[in-house]
């Protein structure tokens, strides 16, 4: 066979293999983003399930802090309902729930009997770990988005990404007001 032809064939084969490898890599990174998003859902549901127990455990001790407790219960119901209303509504409802829980934790600090109660302590640890798991899931989601976005923007993957229509994904933003520490109203009534 003509040596030039062999060389051309070899180059074409190598190119095809490289393109396939890059394409597959992009698909894999995009799927990881979807998986990471689904994992956040798992953690959010776990939080929904834990909250009724916590509210029951502290109710008896917190006679005149009913407002904080009803806020948490209502926010939870809203978050569960928002599950079917789309990601934007869901995110807003979950963020609302997070801030009511923060207020509740801040208030519990002022009740020594509550702080010493084993039930409450164990539930508080469970909620702490759930909150942490939610934020680490979100953090991991952002890491997968960063990886994917970096890939589709850099040479040589950028060429393949353009050809096959891979587009940037959005990061998960912290809830508005997350920078502000919740103030707790301890007035009676």
């Amino acid at each position, binding site marked *: 066979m003509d040596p030039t032809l062999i060389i051309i064939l070899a180059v074409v084969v190598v190119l095809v293999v490289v393109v396939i490898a890059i394409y597959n890599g992009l698909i894999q990174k995009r799927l990881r983003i979807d998986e990471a998003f689904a994992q956040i859902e798992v*953690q959010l549901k776990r939080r929904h399930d834990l909250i009724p127990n916590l509210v029951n455990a502290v109710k008896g001790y917190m006679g005149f802090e009913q407002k904080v407790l009803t806020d948490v219960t209502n926010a939870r119901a809203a978050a569960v309902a928002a599950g079917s209303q789309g990601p934007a509504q869901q995110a807003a409802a979950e963020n609302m729930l997070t801030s009511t829980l923060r207020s509740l934790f801040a208030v519990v600090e002022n009740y020594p009997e509550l702080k010493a109660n084993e039930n409450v302590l*164990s539930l508080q*640890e469970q909620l702490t*770990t759930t909150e*942490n*798991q939610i934020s*680490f*899931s979100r*953090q991991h989601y952002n890491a997968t988005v960063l990886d994917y976005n970096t890939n589709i923007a850099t040479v040589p993957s950028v060429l393949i990404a353009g050809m096959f229509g891979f587009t940037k994904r959005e990061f998960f933003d912290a809830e508005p007001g997350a920078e502000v520490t919740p103030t707790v109203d301890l007035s009676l009534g």
Partner: protein
Amino acid sequence: MASGSFYGQISANKRNSLLMAGLVVIVLGLLGFAIGYAVVGDPAGGVVATVLALGLGSLSGVASFFGGDKLVLTVSGARPVDESSAPQLMNVVREMAISANVPMPAVYIIDDSAPNAFATGRDPAHASIAVTTGLLEKLDREELQGVIGHELSHVRNFDIRFALMVGVMVGAIAILADFFLRFTFWGGGRRSSNREGGGGAQAIVFVIAIVLAILAPIISRFIQLAVNRQREYLADASSVELTRNPYGLERALAKISGDAEVLEVANRGTQHMYFTNPIKKFEARSSGLMSTHPSIIDRINRLRQLTGEAPLGSSEAAGLAGLE
């Protein structure tokens, strides 16, 4: 070497440890070539010798790869725990596993008041983490998270596997050098008179081979220790990547360095695996070339580069060192 973001520190540490491992490979290659040429008059002999030595070294490596973690856990007196026996520890490990996107490792506790931890396992699917009761008592949740993040990063970065591979090569260098030196001094002397051809050049290479055989094991051991130190810095930076909270890890390091307790189950064989060197004498001298871990002061200062804080002043450092 280190820079203002943990991404920078992570890539610098990975690059440095790979370069150093490459150096060990080169040393092994040079030694094999020199020995082969010197003994047989032909580098092919060196290739055979190197491959044989690697093979022998790998045998122990394979055993360690598959069974090593069980052995280490038993030797350290670690007992397995679960949700009901250690809920907060399991929660903290789970949080880090989510952040790192690795499966949940097996979790163990060692009954000892000295605060320390280690991770073992050939890959994230077969990993174990052990912490002492002293660590659980003395650290708060954030600090514990930093330490667990560090240990899980060892698993995620395949440090156990990396250390094993470097260990096999260093072992091969030692076997090769030892064999050659014995052969030369106790039976090889006669050969120099029956060699055909080669002559002067071979004699020179022979001398080089002897020098290499004496120096290579020592040099490769130093490099191995340097690699271990790099991977420790890497695990610290990776922990920050997981927690996004350098302060927790920094406080944990400071608390542990100030603790005078001795971890009884640790010894020279297992010291390199722990979060901080459990042998207190070694920890005190640890900014040198001979140590398995970087000094706690250096580790804290690297973390401070991430937060923009000033490095430890000399009086703070002396206070932390406080070891006899």
